[in-house]
């Protein structure tokens, strides 16, 4: 207080400052001024009459008595105040806003376009993520539905999981395990479906291949667990007897055309030519967000007798096939753990614990919601989603939106300089800060709305761009209320995010300085913020760029790495799987061998493959027994030369119908403790086949090659010749100088031969090129790379648009300066350098910030691969130079244009 009192600024101290401050804060607003003055006067009076100490006390006492913390001014009717949300003002805000958007066409276009791209990326990612996360959420009792999955331990004690369980288990579980409301045993099946119809007095047969997990053989309880809408028939009666089938509506239409569903009842469907079924119900297809895409439901009773029983291994307690599953619905108020506790007891009761295979087996409940995501439990019908990828996608969406919002903030704060006068006038005419903020938010809102509308138009093209990642069943419907809600939310959030800070800055100018034009573009706080935002933007883009480069490097590495075998000009196909006759296969092979175009034909699965099968093999080295689960490839004597594998010791395998001898790889030899591969030759391995244990010799050792994708390291492997069961055929074509057309001709010839041999086969000749098959191992990586490429493109585009706009603005502000510099003899290079330097510094800073972050992220990503590229310093150099070049190109357009301007013209600008 005392400092404000010129009359008493001598030795006399004023009243306690804190009390004065308290008074100025909390006294009645209507009488504040005079009370403060009065008390000051009283204080002086008291000081003169009572002394300083008492005066202070009295002052404090009176302050407290005069505090009116809850008093509000009562003089509101004295002046008419502007109502913040008055209809006229809001209309005015919009009018001014639209005028401003139209006036600054360039900046508005940059803002709108950048925001639109960011928002549409957000919408697309929201759609995808939402779709994946919504799987099975329409099932009424989804919290109580589980699948019983099996667990195993291999020889080294490593656990693995299987979606299925041994076929006889479900029936016993139903008896032994309590608290289950219902349980359904199921088999996923692929078979040809045939229907007949009478046309022109002749029987017409029409067949469809059902390869894509469309047939489910299930118990009637399946329909109690999963709710379907029944169009004909009912869940209570269907599938109770053998040879029944329930179809979905689409499937019924496919088989029988558009006929009334009542007539479909009682029609015959033949599966695999031998299973005759009668339609007893039609259900509605499930929505797209379901993995349960089965369309034919065959009654379980159909396979309980005859040959089917054996084919589906209904009595095999030791075999576990992932297509043989059991779904349960637990009773109400029961937890999964209550069931899980009973399962070990169940297994102990039914499995022979002395059998080595049964050691470490377990059963557990897998929640329905988990089926779509758990990659440890693979089955052969669900199309799983990769959860970390989804989270990464969401992160990308947020970043893209942030980058777009930052553009807006930067341009708006920079541009606010040109509106300083407007603010001053508005404030003088009585505009409050609140209403100014509201006005600028309105402008942001206009721009955001245009951007959002535009982005809705972008969604479809972007979805097409992301085609590889968009599931086939995905449907885009813009009028989905949930989607509309999300779009509205995004619009609102973006407006606030990008509008609030500029509005706050712009409305903070004081009328006096703004009318005097004392505010320049160089307000330090705003400039600092703008600089850090640009740095953030470019750092984000830089991380995207680095990610893209490293992913691309890893993909190239995986596709081009020497895998230890040849992969070019090799065609791969399967012979008919129903046919186990050796003769036919031999006939086919010998016919193919006669082709002049074909160099070699071999039977045996390809060296590298997606799935795997292992056998437990033991070796006694004189002291101890070494038991390992070893990868298995059943091959013939052409296999090693065809794929160009290198024998490092011993000899090639000889053809045989049943296992007679082994060739092993170096890794296995090392694991068995042989120092040199030659030592392994001649040693005996114990191998359990269907006829009990066999002791067979090792005849050769081959150099290591990659058995699976490069995500996993090389495992022990043995080759054996067991031609009887092998259906995989590899064909090496003489490839030198062959064109694609010639390849096609060879394939056609091979197909003709195949058809001749397997004339009655229901399986088509479906060859694939081996190198394509290998590339498919890395589909996930390819998809990730594609998404990151797109995101990088978008991020760079938006950031550059922002930089471009900002450079344009700064250049425009300095037009005169440039003119003067030119007059005084600056060269064009100097001016361009002057204008670009500031931005370049920021870009370099962002590179410095982004590189370690990107390094860390990509290191994490690469950890998934057993064989990976090194992250070399050159990648960072290249990426850094790339973004510097991009930034220079963006900025230099503006700066060169400014530098070339005739000073006579630029100096005239007012």
């Amino acid at each position, binding site marked *: 207080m005392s400092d*404000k009192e010129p*009359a008493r600024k001598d030795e006399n101290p004023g009243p306690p400052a804190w009390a004065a401050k308290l008074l100025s804060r909390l006294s009645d607003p209507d009488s504040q001024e005079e009370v*403060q*003055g*009065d008390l*000051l006067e*009283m204080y002086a009076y008291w000081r003169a009459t009572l002394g300083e100490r008492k005066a202070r006390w009295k002052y404090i*006492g*009176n302050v407290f*008595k005069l505090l009116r913390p809850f008093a509000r001014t009562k003089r509101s009717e004295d002046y008419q105040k502007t109502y913040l949300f008055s209809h006229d003002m809001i209309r005015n805000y919009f009018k001014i806003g639209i005028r401003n958007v139209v006036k600054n066409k360039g900046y508005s276009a940059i803002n709108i376009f950048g925001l639109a791209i960011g928002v549409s990326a957000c919408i697309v990612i929201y759609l995808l993520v939402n779709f994946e996360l919504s799987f099975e959420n329409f099932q009424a009792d989804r919290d109580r539905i589980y699948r019983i999955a099996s667990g195993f331990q291999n020889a080294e004690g490593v656990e693995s999981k299987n979606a299925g369980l041994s076929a006889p288990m479900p029936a016993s579980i139903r008896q032994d395990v309590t608290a289950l409301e219902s349980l359904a045993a199921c088999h996923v099946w692929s078979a040809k479906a045939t229907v007949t119809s009478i046309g022109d007095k002749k029987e017409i047969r029409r067949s469809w291949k059902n390869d894509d997990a469309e047939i489910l053989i299930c118990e009637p309880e399946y329909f109690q667990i999963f709710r379907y809408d029944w169009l004909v028939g009912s869940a209570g009666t269907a599938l109770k007897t053998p040879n029944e089938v329930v179809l979905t509506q689409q499937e019924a239409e496919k088989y029988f055309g558009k006929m009334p569903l009542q007539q479909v009842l009682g029609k015959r469907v033949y599966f695999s030519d031998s299973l005759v079924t009668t339609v007893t119900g039609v259900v509605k297809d499930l929505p797209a967000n379901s993995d349960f895409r089965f369309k034919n439901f065959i009654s379980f009773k159909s396979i309980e007798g005859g040959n089917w029983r054996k084919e589906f291994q209904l009595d095999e307690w030791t075999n576990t096939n992932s297509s043989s599953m059991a779904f349960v619905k637990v009773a109400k108020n029961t937890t999964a753990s209550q069931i899980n506790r009973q399962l070990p007891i169940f297994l102990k009761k039914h499995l022979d614990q002395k059998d080595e295979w049964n050691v470490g087996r377990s059963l557990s409940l897998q929640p329905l919601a988990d089926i779509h995501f758990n990659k440890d439990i693979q089955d052969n019908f669900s199309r799983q989603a990769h959860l970390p990828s989804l989270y990464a996608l969401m992160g990308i969406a947020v970043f893209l939106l942030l980058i777009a919002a930052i553009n807006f903030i930067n341009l708006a704060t920079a541009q606010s300089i040109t509106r300083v006068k407007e603010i001053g006038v508005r404030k003088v005419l009585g505009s409050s800060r609140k209403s100014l903020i509201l006005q600028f938010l309105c402008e942001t809102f206009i721009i955001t709305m245009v951007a959002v509308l535009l982005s809705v138009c972008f969604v479809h093209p972007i979805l097409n761009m992301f085609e590889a990642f968009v599931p086939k069943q995905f449907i885009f419907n813009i009028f989905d209320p949930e989607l509309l809600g999300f779009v509205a939310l995004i619009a609102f959030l973006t407006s606030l995010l990008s509008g609030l800070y500029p509005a706050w800055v712009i409305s903070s100018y004081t009328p006096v300085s703004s009318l005097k034009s004392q505010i320049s573009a160089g307000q330090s706080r705003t400039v600092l913020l703008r600089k850090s935002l640009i740095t953030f933007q470019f750092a984000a883009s830089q991380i995207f760029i680095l990610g893209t480069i490293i992913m691309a490097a890893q993909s190239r590495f995986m596709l081009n790495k020497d895998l230890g075998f040849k992969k070019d000009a090799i065609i791969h196909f399967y012979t008919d799987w129903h046919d186990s006759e050796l003769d036919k296969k031999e006939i086919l092979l010998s016919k193919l061998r006669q082709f002049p175009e074909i160099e070699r034909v071999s039977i045996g699965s390809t060296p590298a493959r997606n799935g795997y099968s292992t056998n437990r093999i033991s070796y006694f080295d004189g002291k101890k027994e070494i038991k390992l689960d070893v990868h298995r490839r059943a091959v013939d004597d052409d296999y090693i030369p065809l794929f160009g594998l290198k024998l490092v010791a011993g000899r090639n395998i000889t053809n045989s119908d049943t296992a007679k001898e082994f060739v092993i790889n170096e890794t296995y030899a090392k694991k068995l403790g042989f120092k040199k591969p030659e030592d392994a030759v001649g040693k005996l391995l114990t191998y359990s086949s269907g006829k009990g244990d066999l002791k067979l010799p090792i005849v050769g050792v081959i150099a290591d090659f990659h058995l699976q994708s490069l995500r996993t390291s090389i495992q022990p492997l043995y080759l054996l010749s067991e031609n009887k069961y092998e259906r995989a055929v590899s064909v090496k074509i003489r490839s030198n100088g062959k064109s694609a057309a010639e390849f096609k001709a060879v394939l056609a010839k091979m197909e003709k031969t195949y058809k001749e041999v397997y004339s009655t086969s229901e399986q088509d000749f479906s060859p694939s090129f081996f190198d394509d098959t290998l590339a498919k191992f890395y589909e996930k990586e390819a998809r990730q790379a594609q998404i990151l490429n797109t995101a990088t493109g978008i991020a760079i585009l938006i950031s550059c648009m922002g930089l471009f706009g900002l450079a344009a603005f700064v250049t425009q502000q300095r037009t005169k300066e440039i003119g003067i510099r030119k007059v005084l003899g600056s060269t064009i290079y100097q001016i361009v350098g002057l204008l670009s330097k500031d931005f370049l510094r920021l870009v370099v800073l962002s590179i410095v910030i982004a590189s370690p972050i990107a390094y860390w992220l990509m290191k994490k990503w690469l950890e998934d691969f057993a064989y990976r590229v090194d992250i070399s310093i050159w990648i960072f150099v290249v990426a850094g130079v790339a973004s510097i070049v991009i930034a220079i190109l963006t900025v230099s357009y503006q700066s060169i244009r400014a530098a070339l301007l005739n000073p006579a013209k630029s100096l005239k600008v007012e």
Partner: protein
Amino acid sequence: MKRTFLGEFEEVILLTVAVLDEDAYAVSVTQELEKKTGRTVGFSAVHTTLQRLEEKGFLSSTMGGATAERGGRRKRFFTVTAFGRKALQEARQVREELWNALPPSMLQLMGE
């Protein structure tokens, strides 16, 4: 008629404002009261009473011009309204009527 009621302190303050004429504001009223009555008067009480009297319509107020004193803060000057004058007169009349009604013996006892 609604009875206007003045408390003792209110009456004294109203009177003091009338006495001070043009120069009545919270500080001068307080100091004048202390001078005239000899008792210490709380400033906050005076301020509150002045406000209450204004609310009741006995006083009206205007802000004075800004001065270099008191930190440049203006004073709020009070003047007695017609209604205030009437209230003062009524109070005085009541008192006088009561004095007049005093029995002579009582007056004698009081030394009159």
